[in-house]
């Protein structure tokens, strides 16, 4: 490992984050002990399937968790040296929008249908920067231009329903970046968009990241988007980080059987395969995470130990961690593969 002091301080530090929802069906441990850092100007990808806790993680950082959800005591979120979980709400409100901004999957539900998009962007500048009406409006038009909207002065006077999905997402991005935030949380920003529009938005995010020198937390279920955008990746499963690595390392040498399974299950352009590998079963409900390793009942390598014990994160390579006992018993992976080859299954 590199010496800790040789690294610049992290912009965001999350330690042992636990967000639980107390429901009639029991306690849903949606996020259950998540720790990671985001460095300045870095894009970190969080990938996982529905219900893995990736969105709740980002909402917890923003402190946007509503009852019955609570961020449990002992969780820590530090941003620019401040403990966000201890800030009074008015202080936190200044951080949101000013220093940390967020964009969501469905821009239509995040925009107010009765105000023009220019008014909505200008309002952010007026509230957070005390800008005059005129200045705020000019700033809104300028932001629309930056996000590549043609005829921005004209578009600013239009209502959200007059815009296409791609345009609305550009408006959301403009609104998020008005105050020049240090961190942008993008939660499935392109999932609702067509692939050619997705390409435009991803390109735009990369350009704006450079220009605004910001960090991005990119939350997505799409490993393709992760591969193109992120420098580091967190893979989440059942409320936990199960693997963490640089993007190159993760795709070249996935360690956790869940990551391995996700990559194998994805049909990939240009890679003809006769049959997709499957991960059997489905994600368990968050009120009933399995004991031991939470993935063991879907895992092709599982043996007694992960059924009984909960694995910690093991360091399996340079800056590469995996929550799997295969780190200590690697021979089990090759044995299982040999066995399935002998049985005639595809590896």
């Amino acid at each position, binding site marked *: 490992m590199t010496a800790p002091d040789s690294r610049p301080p992290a912009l965001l530090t999350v330690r042992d984050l636990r967000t639980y929802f107390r429901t009639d069906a029991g306690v849903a441990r949606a996020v259950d002990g998540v720790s990671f850092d985001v460095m300045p100007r870095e894009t970190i990808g969080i990938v996982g399937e529905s219900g893995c806790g990736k969105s709740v993680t980002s909402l917890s950082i923003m402190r946007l968790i509503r009852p019955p959800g609570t961020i449990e005591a002992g969780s820590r979120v530090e941003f620019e040296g401040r403990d966000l979980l201890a800030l009074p709400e008015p202080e936190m409100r200044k951080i949101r929008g000013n220093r940390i901004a967020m964009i969501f999957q469905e821009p239509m539900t995040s925009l107010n249908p009765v105000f023009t998009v220019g008014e909505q962007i200008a309002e952010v500048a007026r509230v957070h920067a005390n800008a005059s009406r005129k200045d705020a409006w000019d700033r809104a038009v300028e932001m629309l231009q930056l996000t590549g909207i043609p005829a921005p002065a004209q578009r600013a006077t239009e209502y959200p329903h007059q815009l296409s999905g791609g345009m609305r997402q550009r408006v959301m991005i403009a609104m998020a970046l008005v105050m020049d935030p240090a961190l942008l949380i993008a939660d499935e920003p392109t999932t609702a968009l067509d692939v050619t529009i997705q390409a435009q938005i991803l390109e735009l995010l990369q350009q704006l990241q450079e220009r605004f020198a910001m960090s991005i937390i990119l939350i997505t279920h799409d490993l393709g988007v992760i*591969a*193109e955008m992120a420098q580091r990746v967190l893979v989440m499963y059942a409320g936990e980080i199960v693997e963490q690595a640089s993007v190159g390392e993760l795709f070249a040498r996935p360690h956790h059987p869940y990551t391995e399974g996700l990559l194998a299950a994805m049909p990939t352009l240009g890679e*003809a395969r006769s049959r997709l590998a499957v991960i059997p079963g489905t994600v368990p409900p968050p009120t009933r995470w399995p004991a031991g390793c939470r993935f063991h009942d879907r895992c092709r390598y599982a043996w007694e130990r992960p059924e009984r014990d909960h694995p910690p994160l093991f360091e399996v390579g340079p800056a590469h961690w995996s929550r799997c006992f295969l780190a200590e018993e690697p021979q089990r992976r090759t044995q299982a593969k040999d066995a399935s080859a002998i049985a005639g299954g595809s590896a």
Partner: protein
Amino acid sequence: MSSLLSVRDLVKHFPITRGVFGRPVGAVRAVDGISFDVKQGETLGLVGESGCGKTTAGRAILRLIEPTSGQVTFDGVDVLSRDPARLRALRRRMQIVFQDPFSSLNPRMTVGAIVREGLIIHELAEGAAAHARVKQLLEEVGLRPEYATRYPHEFSGGQRQRIGIARALAVEPSFIVCDEPVSALDVSVQAQVINLLQDLQRDRGLTYLFIAHDLSVVEHVATRVAVMYLGHIVELAGAEDLYAEPFMPYTQALLSAVPIPDPQKRKQRIVLTGDVPSPANPPPGCPFHPRCHHPAKDAACARITPPLETKADGHLAACIKQPPTRITWEEQLAAGATHRPERYVPLALAARS
């Protein structure tokens, strides 16, 4: 192989009306004259972005919505001229699996009743025989037979999609329109459902029209692929040819836009400018010309509607600038052309293979 389904000049326009009397003032040209065949036992992929007309096309073929004009022939039978009673008999052989497993199953019916309905309507089985058949179907799609007594809300998205597939299979169809069958599912579950559809096709000799926006999924399942843009088929070829050597600049852009899950292959993309125009007001000439990146694009593209024509063996595309084309240079000149047709393969695509 012979064609099981043949579609000719299929058109579906939705009228735009105004005022209390519903005066028609225009039309959304959702499907604007498409023709293709689906051969016995193959999977024809129908891809395109939102609003391109692929879903409307699938439904118009089954007459779930009535087409404006055109011809659909299924196994020698003219589908569009059939009266309702005889259409029902045909429907037994043509089924559909919907995208959204949450809204396409009746929440008040048990899984057993949902799957059984088709058996009863088409008088294929009743009583104990129907019961036994339902259990057999559930097993076939990978569900436990005892699930028959439960309700749809008790199941996950992937399981519901299996129920939808069992319902379609109940009447023993030979042709199934799969309308975005895996789009709402997580990756790991998506793979399970794709494999199931492929197994069923192999075991039962099914023919699929597979409608999807995900090009990777379509490449995986399809024998041949048709690409739609603004109500038109703009390219149609064997899956391998289409993905290896797309002719139509739209297909090229579409393929280059798909993110590849391999950071070593971070690549150049053809980033199209602008949005898809409205199908209520499509551009004249080639529907793609306002966004086209072909270097030979010129005034003729805005005037001449490109025919879907043979560019290579079994490979059709609609572009007057990708040779060969039956639109002569004289005709193009007359339409204001300044650039001769020239084979164009963008770097972004050449670099990836």
